[in-house]
């Protein structure tokens, strides 16, 4: 715990590991995300099309995976507290028909100031890291 001259104790400390949360990705959710985000690229919905362009199968929108990691960040201090959020899409999330793919998101506190905390985010499907260099800055109230 960090004390700033009598200010409220922060619930975040540098090096602290934040508990993982598991999110589900499936074909139905990808269609919902395509509609909500206006990203109707068929590689995220149509298996035949995805395979025709050299993909193993339908893949999740990178931004859907990032949005689920964003839910993890929002769960810390609320969506309104998120100041920065970044990620690199290092591996596609392959989504077979009639299957739920699990995305496991966890966090580690990198920096704490009086007003903000910087969190490193990890996102894995099975043992494959799907987001790289993922970080968020959240405001502390």
């Amino acid at each position: 715990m960090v004390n700033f001259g009598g200010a409220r104790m922060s619930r975040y400390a540098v090096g602290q590991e934040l508990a993982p949360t598991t999110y589900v990705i499936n074909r139905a959710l990808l269609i919902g995300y395509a509609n909500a985000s206006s990203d109707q690229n068929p590689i995220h919905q149509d298996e035949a099309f995805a395979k025709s362009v050299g993909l193993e199968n339908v893949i999740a929108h990178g931004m859907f995976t990032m949005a689920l990691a964003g839910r993890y960040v929002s769960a810390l201090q609320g969506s309104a507290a998120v100041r920065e959020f970044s990620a690199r899409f290092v591996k596609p999330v392959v989504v077979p028909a009639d299957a739920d793919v699990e995305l496991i998101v966890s966090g580690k506190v990198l920096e704490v100031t009086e007003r903000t905390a910087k969190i490193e985010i990890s996102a894995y499907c099975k043992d494959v890291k799907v987001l790289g260099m993922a970080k968020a800055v959240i405001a502390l109230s």
Partner: protein
Amino acid sequence: MLNPDIVGRTFPGAVAFAVTQESITEFCTAIGEPNFEVAPPTYTIKITLTESEALLKESGLDWSRVVHGDQKFEIHRPIVAGDALICSSTIESARVVAGNEIVSVRSDLHNGDELVASSWSTLVVRA
């Protein structure tokens, strides 16, 4: 190939995107976010990526081969229903690495004179 003349240029958006509670609720529902009061941190991708797609297609880029390389958001204040966001897009760089075209776009979202959020997208056109 992208027309190299557009690198470094800023394209102001012509039309404001009206943020409605319905669109925030729809986005939250799609990602399973239980709190609908403000837009989730990645909500603005639905505005900025649509703008980038139109701009880059017009400038010669093959959108059908585009994959998303990385994404960053800076959010100056939460986006809420009632915001009318104008997206201006700047093509910050375009280069070719191992046959893949890599384009970086910065998108600034203004509500009136107020800069509400900025985002950066790296888009990769697979060879």
